[in-house]
C-alpha cells in the first residue's frame, strides 16, 4: 500500500480502440493480474492505477484511463485525451476491422492532445488465439514504423507482454522527460511529479473507508 503513495512521477495514459478489442482486459491483466474473459463493457470512462519502475529506483505511477469503444461514446471520451501524455492504441489481432480503425483513433487522439506532446503505443491483443489471427505482426509493425510509434503484441489471457507494453510506454515517456522533450507543466496533467520528490508529507495514505460510515469497514487497509 505504501507504494501507491510513493513515486517519482505520474503519467496519465489513455487506452483507446474499437469495442471488444480487449482494452479493459488488458488493463485488468496489468493492474490486477487477473484475466476475465468477459469484463462488462466500459460505459463512458473508467480508471485504473498502477506503479511501474522505469529504471532502478525510479517509480512511476501510471494513471490509466479506459474508454468505451463504441463510436457514439467518443463524444464523452474525447474530453479525456487532453491531459494524457501517452495513448495506447489497441486493436484486436483476430479482427482486421479493428486494425483499420486505428488510424482514426490515432488522428482523434493527436487532434485532441495537441499542442502537448504525447507518446503513442500500438498494441495488438489476443495473440493467444494465433489460429484466428487476421492481422500479421508485420502489418502492425509497418503501421507503427510509418507513424514512428512503438509497437507490441500482447495476450491478456496468458499475460504475455502485458507488463512489457506498459513498461515500454512508461520508459519512452520517462526518456523524453529526461531529455527535456516533455515537461511537467502547470495546467496540464499528463505528467506530474510524485509526492516522493515533491512533498514527503503527502506520502501517507489517507484512510477513506472509515469515513463513509461510522462503523469501520476497512476495505482499503490491510
Amino acid at each position, binding site marked *: 500500500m505504501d507504494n501507491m503513495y510513493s513515486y517519482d512521477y505520474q503519467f496519465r495514459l489513455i487506452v483507446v480502440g474499437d469495442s471488444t478489442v480487449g482494452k479493459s482486459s488488458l488493463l485488468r491483466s496489468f493492474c490486477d493480474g487477473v484475466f476475465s474473459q468477459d469484463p462488462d463493457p466500459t460505459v463512458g470512462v473508467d480508471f485504473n492505477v498502477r506503479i511501474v519502475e522505469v529504471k532502478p529506483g525510479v517509480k512511476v505511477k501510471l494513471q490509466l484511463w479506459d474508454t468505451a469503444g463504441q463510436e457514439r461514446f467518443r*463524444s464523452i471520451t474525447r474530453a479525456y485525451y487532453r491531459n494524457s501524455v501517452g495513448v495506447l492504441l489497441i486493436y484486436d489481432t483476430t479482427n482486421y476491422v479493428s486494425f483499420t480503425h486505428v*488510424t482514426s483513433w490515432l488522428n482523434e487522439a493527436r487532434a485532441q492532445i495537441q499542442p502537448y506532446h504525447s507518446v503513442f503505443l500500438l498494441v495488438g491483443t489476443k495473440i493467444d488465439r494465433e489460429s484466428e489471427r487476421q492481422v500479421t505482426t508485420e502489418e502492425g509493425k509497418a503501421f507503427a514504423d510509418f507513424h514512428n510509434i512503438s509497437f507490441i503484441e500482447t495476450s491478456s489471457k496468458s499475460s504475455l507482454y502485458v507488463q512489457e507494453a506498459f513498461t515500454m510506454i512508461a520508459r519512452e515517456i520517462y526518456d523524453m522527460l529526461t531529455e527535456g522533450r516533455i515537461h511537467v507543466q502547470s495546467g496540464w496533467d499528463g505528467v506530474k511529479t510524485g509526492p516522493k520528490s515533491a512533498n514527503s508529507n503527502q506520502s501517507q495514505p489517507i484512510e477513506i473507508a472509515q469515513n463513509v460510515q461510522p462503523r469501520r469497514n476497512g476495505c482499503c487497509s490491510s
Partner: protein
Amino acid sequence: MTVGNAPEPSLAAGCVEENFQEWKESMSNEVRLPGGLSSGSRQKLWISLAKNYIREVHLDWDKTRQFAFNPESYPEDEQLNNQIVKDLHRTGCNWSTNEQNRIILQRVLLAFARYNKSIGYCQGLHILTSVILDVMDMNEEHALMILIYLIDSILPDFFSNNLHALAIDMTVFDHWLKVFNPQLHLHLKNLQSTSALNDDEGGNYEPPLLNVFTIQWFLTLFVTCLPRPATLRVWDALMIEGNEVLFRTGLLLWSKLSIAVLKVTTADQFYSAMGHLSVQLLDEKIIVADNLIQEIYNVGPFPTPFLSELRQKFSIQAPSNRTSPTNQSKSKTDLKRIKTKLLDEEIVNFVSCFAILSSSSLRNNRSVEKSNSPDVNQLRQQYKKLQQRNKQVQIISQTSNTQRQCAPDSICSISAGPLVNHLLVKPTDIKRNQLRKNVSSKSLSSKDQQPEEYEKEIQQLLTCLNVPQSNKLPQADSKKTSSDNSIDRFLISRSAQIPKYSSFNPFPSRSFNENVAVNGYKLGLYSPVVTSR
C-alpha cells in the same frame, strides 16, 4: 407487501387517464414503503406503466411486435447484431451464461434497435435489458415494452444523438450539486483547479471530476454501482417519477461519499479513493435501499422546477452565442454565474461540430464576444493535419512498404488530388454509419437548412487547402486571406444556421449532411484546436 390497489396490467391499459393517475400516485406511495414492492408487484408496475405509455402514444403494438420480432432479417440487422453479440455475454447478470437466455436478450435488443432506429444499439442498453428481463422472468415481449417505455419516455435522447442529452444533463447535474452540496462542489472544483492552474488560459477544460462516475451511473441506471435490491427500488421510483430520480440518486450518493471525498487533497487522490468507494457503494450494508428511497423522496415533491429550468438553459445555449441569455432566470443568483468556463468547456467537449468556434473562445474565455475567425495558426494546423491525413492514406495504400524515407515528423509535400479524395470519403466510416441514416426529427430540422450551402463552403475551403501551390500555405500570408475568408464564411453560416444546441447533431458522422460532415471531420474541422499562448 401487497399491492391491493394496483390494477391488472390489462386494466391499466384500458383504464381512463384519471384512474391511471390515481393508481400511479398510490404506487408512488407504495414504492417508498419499507421493503418496497414484491417481485410480482414490480412486474405489474413496470408493465402497466409501459402499456399505458404505448397506449398514450398510440403505438400499434401488434404491428410493432411483429415488425420488431420478425424472424426474417432486415438488411441492417447484420450490423446491429455484430455490435449486440459483442456484449451479450457481459451483462453482469448470472443468467447470461445460459445460451438460451442470451438468445432472448439478443432478440429483445435487436427488436428495440429495429423499433428505434435513431438509437439502434448502444452499449449499456444490454445491461438495462438484462435487468428488465431478469425482473420480467425473461418475457421478451414485456421486456421490449418496458424498454421502449424506459428509453423513449423516461430517458428521451439519452442514448441517441451521441448521448447529447446526457451531456447536457451532466452539466445540469454539476450545477445542481453546487446548490445541493456546495461544500463538496467547491472542494471538487478546487481539486481540479489545482491540477490545472492556468484557469484563465484555457488550461482546464476537462469535465468535472465527478463526471467519470456519474456518466456511468446514469447510463446504466445504477445497475453497476448499487447493490441489486437498491437498484430495483431506484428503478421503481424512476419508472413512476421520471428521470429526475437519477439526479436525486446521484446527488445523494455523492453526498454519502462526500465525507471521504472532502478528505482528498488532489484530483489523483480523488480518483484513487473512488476505486475503494465504488466498491463500498455495492455493499448492501452501506447502501440501505429503504433509506435511499426515503431520501430520494425527501428531496421534495416531484418534479423539481429547478431541474427543468437548468435543462432548458443548457439546452438553449449554443457554445457560439454564449453571450448572456435574455431569459436569465429571475431567481437563484448562482444561475447568473452559469456562463462559467466549466460549462464552456463541457459543451466544447461534447459539441465537436463547434470545435473551431470553441477553440477560439477557449483561448480567450473571458471575451465571449470575440470574433469567430480562426487565425493563421489554426489554418496552419489544419494544413498540417491535411498532410498527416495524406500520410495516413499512403500507409493504407502501401502498408507493406516499410521503407522509412518519409519520417512522420517531417513535412512531406502534399500529394495530388486523388489521394486527398480517397481520404475524404472513407468508406468504412460511411458504412458504419449507414444504420444511423434515420436521423431523429430534431436533426432533420437542421438538415432542411440548406446543406448545399455548407457543402459549398466546405468545397471552397477544400480548394483553398488543396491547390497545388498550397504547400506554401503556412508561410505565405497572401494565401491566408482567401482561406481565412472561406473558413470565416463557413463558420458564420454554421453559427447562423444552428440556433439551438438541441436542434443539431453534435457529431459529424450523422449530422445534417453526412458528406459535408465527414469531409469536414477529415479536415480536422471538428477537432478542438487548442493553441498554446
